[in-house]
């Protein structure tokens, strides 16, 4: 327990000492939040209704999908994991503690978003706080699981950015954060169902904001939860201590994490389209 506490304290401080992590955890989500608050409301009046959940999801995506993987890959490439191995640091700690630390940082950023969203931009607050917190925790688990999995399977730092952006950019554009899913063409709505952001947004809207989503949002929560558990299990299974000269398990297996989303895209009904104004 003492080892876990030291490890966690170190990881948490690293988030503050490391400029890149600081950027991903705080500067990018908060900067984007204020920019959207001042500009987007005029462009898209719907945006204000879901501004708080959308910006919270954005903070989690940037902190965990963009921020978490890179330090893991760099640590493996620079031999830090080798030092960890010879000093009895378990693989599970290497994967879980950065996720836990990222959760604290992302929660601080999310609190700022919720408070300033309501006070500065008059964005509506959640009507049901308990579901809001529970959904938030499930999304944290999902995003951190995916971030850790990307960090484990990426062969190099350069590839990591590519993998992260494969989730991050589509989530931003078609995940329902900037514009409601219903405003997308049907084919794109289906594709959006392959992204965790769309289920996260629906779960926030349906369970915490009191808005209709066209299906029981608990299905979305279940999909996120299963995906999170799959992601952590796969990350642990595919974990490698060394980037050179050691046999690594096939990273293609990581695609299994998409299974719950594929099932969701096939089985869950799409919302009624809203025409552009």
């Amino acid at each position, binding site marked *: 327990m003492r*080892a876990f506490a*030291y490890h966690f304290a170190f990881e948490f*401080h*690293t988030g503050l*000492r490391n400029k890149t992590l600081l950027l991903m955890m705080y500067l990018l989500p908060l900067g984007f939040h204020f920019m959207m608050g001042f500009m987007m409301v005029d462009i898209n009046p719907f945006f204000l209704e879901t501004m708080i959940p959308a910006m919270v999801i954005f903070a989690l995506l940037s902190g965990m999908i963009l921020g978490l993987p890179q330090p893991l890959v760099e640590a493996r490439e620079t031999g830090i*994991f080798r030092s960890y191995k010879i000093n009895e640091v378990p693989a599970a700690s290497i994967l879980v503690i950065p996720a836990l630390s990222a959760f604290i940082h992302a929660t601080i950023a999310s609190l700022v978003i919720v408070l300033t969203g309501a006070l500065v931009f008059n964005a509506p607050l959640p009507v049901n706080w308990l579901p809001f917190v529970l959904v938030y925790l499930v999304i944290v688990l999902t995003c951190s699981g995916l971030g850790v999995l990307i960090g484990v399977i990426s062969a190099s730092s350069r590839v990591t950015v590519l993998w992260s952006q494969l989730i991050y950019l589509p989530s931003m554009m078609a995940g329902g954060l900037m514009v409601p899913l219903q405003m997308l063409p049907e084919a794109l709505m289906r594709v959006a169902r392959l992204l965790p952001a769309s289920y996260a947004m629906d779960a926030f809207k349906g369970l915490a904001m009191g808005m209709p989503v066209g299906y029981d949002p608990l299905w979305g929560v279940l999909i996120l939860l299963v995906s999170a558990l799959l992601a952590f299990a796969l990350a642990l299974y595919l974990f490698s*201590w060394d980037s050179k000269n050691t046999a690594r398990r096939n990273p293609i297996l990581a695609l299994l994490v998409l299974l719950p989303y594929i099932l969701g895209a096939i089985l869950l009904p799409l919302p009624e389209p809203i025409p552009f104004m």
Partner: protein
Amino acid sequence: MSDVIVVSGLCKVYDELVAVDDVSFTVREGEIFGLLGPNGAGKTTTLECMEGLRIPDSGNIDIMGVDPNRDPRKLHSIIGVQLQSSGLPQTIKVKEAMKFFSAYHGVNPRMELLARLNLSEKAESEYQTLSTGQQRRLALALAISHSPAVLFLDEPTAGLDVASRVELHCLMNELKEAGTTIILSTHDMAEAEEMTDRVAILLQGRIVTISTPRELTATGSGLTKISLRTSDNTATGVEFPAVEKQTFGEEYNIYYSRDIGPTVTAIIYYIVKNNDTLIDLRVERPSLEERFLELTKEGAV
């Protein structure tokens, strides 16, 4: 003394490169065992297989009854490792690193090691701000913080200044006296000669010899270097018994002798007989470095 490490038939191949080829040796309790060899000889791969960082393709390793691949957790509780390239997070502070790894080993951090390794002033410094020598000293402090029974040192003095090197050697001797078995991989022949009880020389993945440094140097060409300087330089051109080759310089005459007794006796007799005055006479046994070069040359041939 019992064997604490038994390596037998160790092989490791990377793609088509045979890094370690049928390596076998034992290390006795409480000895400093040197692994010598040129770059690419297989030293680090051998060490990393023993440290549980690489999986051998074949062969057996037994470290105090533990197979590194079957029980790595148990292995890492009895061994300490200073890696050649010590990977630590760039932003971790020296003091944090001591606490962090000690906690995972389940021991209290031995902060006195920082003072011993001249790192006290750097306790609050981040790893990335340390010099190469300081980083290596920190790696050593971390390796011994849980008082391991077996210590692996991979090029421990590389990048260290003279004072730090002397301090490290003192520390190694103290650990040896306390019963720690040390496996030392080094390029530094003087260090190996001074510090090790036995050395194994690796060439192209194979062990070519295992012996004490003294025995090893004795089995070489065996020529002892005798440097002579006299006031009148009367010995120039004279042939002395047991001398196999000689060179004559402006200040010193150099003789390479198979048997120093007759050679030195004859030299002194000659000087006295010719009323010359001895200014300097040096006798230098063949060094481990010379023997190492002989062996690597033979291996290369």
